[in-house]
């Protein structure tokens, strides 16, 4: 059994629908509600009722996977403009794999998490732009790393590499007809970072 926690700001006024659809896509592609996973969702409706800190504390210091489908800045992840993850509760992510599609968190929060014992962090160090004409392509690229990690038993580093490869494939498909969108895919790819343990595997999170 693997504990998996997803924070999803699905009611965000700008990107709520996109983030919600990303969660559903991950549920399908990674079969997150099968017997191998104990999956919890903290969404916009529930984040105050079920604070993230108490949810993580219920894992009793066991390793877990965390996926952030929410806005971010250098230091924090947000739901509904409230910081739900920042330096103050970063120690809760000890022994986790932290995967964020949020903007900017690789600039500072990623380092803080690793310093506090997070196993591996994958996220972005700049703004992440979404193409409204090619949402699926951008979503597929953003989720590719965690999908490979969960479905293909790849190491954290190899999953990250597969994400880069996925971005390159989509850039190459797109640029002959739409170099502007391909340019934004490249910008998103260039913002990707991996920190911490590059060799961890999904089995490391079995409790």
């Amino acid at each position, binding site marked *: 059994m693997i504990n998996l926690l997803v924070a999803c700001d699905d009611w965000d*006024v*700008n*990107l709520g629908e996109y983030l919600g659809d990303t969660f559903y896509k991950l549920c399908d592609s990674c079969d997150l509600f099968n017997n191998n996973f104990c999956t919890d969702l903290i969404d916009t409706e529930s984040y105050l009722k079920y604070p993230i800190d108490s949810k993580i504390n219920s894992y009793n210091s066991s390793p877990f996977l965390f996926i952030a489908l929410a*806005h971010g800045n250098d230091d924090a992840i947000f739901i509904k403009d409230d910081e739900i993850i920042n330096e103050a509760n970063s120690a809760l992510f000890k022994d986790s794999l932290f995967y964020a599609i949020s*903007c900017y968190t690789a600039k500072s929060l990623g380092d803080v998490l690793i310093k506090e014992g997070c196993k591996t962090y994958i996220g972005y160090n700049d*703004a*992440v*732009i*979404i*193409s*409204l*004409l090619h949402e699926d392509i951008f979503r597929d690229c953003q989720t590719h790393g965690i999908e490979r990690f969960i479905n293909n038993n790849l190491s954290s580093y190899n999953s990250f590499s597969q994400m880069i490869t996925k971005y*390159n494939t989509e*850039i*190459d498909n797109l*640029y002959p007809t739409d*170099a*502007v*969108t*391909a*340019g*934004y895919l*490249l*910008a998103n790819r*260039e913002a990707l970072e991996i920190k911490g343990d590059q060799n961890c595997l999904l089995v490391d999170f079995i409790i």
Partner: protein
Amino acid sequence: MRYSIPKIVVIHDDLTETDALLVTLRAEFKDENVVLYKKSKDGLEYVINNISQKTIVILDLNFKAGEPSGVDVFEEIRKRTALMYIIIMTASNLGDIENTDLIKFINNDALAFFYSTADTKAIVGLVKKSIYQMEVRVDSVIEEWIMTKPVEEREKPFIQTQHGDKYSLNDILKGIREQSEIGKEIEKNILKLAIDLLMREKESLND
């Protein structure tokens, strides 16, 4: 010439259709691509109403009282687009031009100055230089690509930032012309894309 010929708009109150400059320009670039406006107001109106057309403006500095001056015309064009090439034609010595006007020309990318008495071959050379630069400038290429899209497609939201700012292709076009942040960002992305494709050997320099 391999490249497409833009419109050459001569705005000059002392020239006539039979003047050497007009005859030479028409011989070199074809009749239909060269227009003369003797009134600066009419020339400015034509340019503004055809802002999406690739245009090189040959602009006199001094006009009769009651007509916008060359500086005024230059500024009005530059308010709307950085992508039009403007060649300033003057009978005055450079030293006789107001410093403030010179600063406006220099800081807002006037392509060149030439004296009214200059050899017409030299002027043709300047126009050819402008045409070449239009073909290789990233912002001009992006503008041209956007203009190939149907009007209704250009009005649809195209990209979205994390803050919820949505930009259509028309917004991007405006940004390119006005050299706003979004315009500059897209130019940078395209240049980085070109380098990335070369580095990954998806394209080569002799293609």
